[in-house]
């Protein structure tokens, strides 16, 4: 079943993401359209920004999820793990409106020729945005398919000319108790931290995201800038990034620090390595009743397996 003669993203442009996907894909929003549905509820959910904002212009659209159905804007923006805004799935949509995303700058430091604070507009080339449809697999065994807008992470990182000592990249989420009510509870050791090996970070599938469904990304999904690493569990895809650090030593992510027996540095989607709390063999795609089989590297093995040649993935989970 996995043998492909043609990669799914070799489809011609007009075949990818037909407008129907945006407006009418899910029964829940049938007859409404995303914007209209959102407009009704937006005062409660902090979606105003997404609705008022203009559409991004993208230079290309690529579907990395085959013929799998997109999840609705409502599903993606009301069911979130973003503990800085509360630990229940509906908390971020309720609370994240207090996050101030303009102006936004990112502090770049460590093993690179160019370092310092850089404004979001200078970090991301908004004239080179692409749309990519990726599968998203949470370690809690649910998954979605989402249309992200962004630029390859490599394009962002190369701006700083990382030196040969830059073996890893460490990212940090903003941690401001005034903007993020969840920080009052020390669920994790804030600020939220994640990291990648430099070759993982430079891999063409690693994506720095600023948009969702063609619009600026809502706060609860990690505005104004987040990582998306589609072959890893979702918690690796860190949100609302304020710091990028190139370093020689392997960074320790917040979840790994909290419980290293359960959350490893790599955290590649792997149906053969169970999490102590969850079997990872299967997953529930949001919107479906029956669980589906989880794919090795979330279905991106053809592209990323070579990053881990010779590594014991049971040990390096």
């Amino acid at each position, binding site marked *: 079943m996995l043998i492909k003669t043609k990669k799914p993203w070799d489809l011609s442009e007009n075949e990818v993401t037909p407008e129907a996907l945006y407006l009418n894909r899910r*029964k*829940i929003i*049938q007859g409404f359209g995303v914007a209209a549905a959102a407009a009704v*509820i937006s005062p409660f959910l902090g979606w105003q920004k997404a609705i008022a904002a203009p559409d991004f212009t993208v230079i290309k659209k690529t579907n990395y999820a085959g013929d799998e159905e997109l*999840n609705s804007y*409502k*599903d993606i923006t*009301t*069911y979130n793990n973003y*503990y800085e805004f509360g*630990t229940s*799935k*509906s908390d971020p949509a309720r609370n994240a409106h207090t996050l101030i995303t303009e102006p936004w700058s990112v502090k770049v430091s460590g093993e690179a020729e160019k370092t310092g604070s850089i404004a979001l507009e200078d970090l991301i080339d908004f004239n080179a945005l692409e749309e990519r449809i990726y599968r998203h697999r949470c370690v*809690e065994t*649910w998954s979605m398919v989402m249309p992200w807008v962004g630029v390859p992470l490599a394009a962002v990182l190369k701006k700083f000319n990382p030196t040969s000592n830059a073996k890893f990249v460490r990212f940090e989420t903003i941690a401001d108790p005034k903007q993020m009510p969840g920080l009052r*509870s*020390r*669920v*994790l050791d804030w600020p939220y931290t994640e990291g990648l090996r430099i070759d993982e970070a430079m891999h063409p599938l690693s994506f720095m995201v600023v948009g969702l469904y063609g619009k600026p990304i809502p706060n609860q999904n990690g505005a104004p800038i987040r990582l998306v690493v589609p072959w890893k569990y979702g918690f690796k895809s860190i949100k609302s990034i304020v710091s990028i650090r190139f370093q020689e030593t392997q960074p320790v992510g917040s*979840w790994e620090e*909290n419980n290293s027996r359960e959350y490893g540095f790599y955290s590649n989607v792997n149906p053969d390595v*169970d999490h*102590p*709390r*969850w*079997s990872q*063999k*299967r997953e*529930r795609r*949001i*919107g479906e*009743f*029956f*669980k589906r089989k989880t794919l090795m590297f979330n279905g991106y093995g053809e592209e990323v397996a070579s990053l881990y040649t010779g590594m014991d993935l049971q040990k390096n989970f």
Partner: protein
Amino acid sequence: MIGMALPLSWLLYNWALAVDEGFNLGYLTSLGFHQLTANPIEYTNRFLGDWALRFLLASLAVTPLARIFKFNQLVAYRRMIGLWAFAYVSIHLSSYIVLDQFFDWGEIWGDILKRNFITLGMISFTLLIPMAFTSTKGWIKRLGAKVWKRIHKAIYVVAPLASAHYFMMAKGNQLDPKIYIGIVAVLLGIRVWFYYQDKTKAANRKAAA
């Protein structure tokens, strides 16, 4: 007592809305959107688990409250609260078996053996079965008060296990499960205190006589 059916009624009402929305039936559109999140199955499991635990602790709170406030009529409600707790536990387990795993017994058995929090949950449920079964007056007579009481002392094991089940399920360092564990500690601790109080009183009475 009938108030204990409210969480379940709310859940069923929202499932009706969810089914109406999901299948685009349009019968209930005017009533609004369901509140079960984009993942109603996970939401349902957790909702039922939360309420099962709350009612278990409520049943455990009856005896100390009745004694502290000298309000013995309260004890009359203990059995109903316990039975409601058992009902929520059973529906919680059914929702895991039917909605979450859809009768995949291999996976379920694997979970019970490998996932510590599910192991504890299953032990708690198993210990509750004889309690629920022998809850009638007839069974008290048949077994005799002594044996019957011993069976029902299982709640002192179930309450810590059930709150540990929740604690181990929650990711990260969350506050809520700790609150439940704290309540269980207080409700069990207070019994130890009562026990020693009674013992001293009895000793004093003996000494006075």
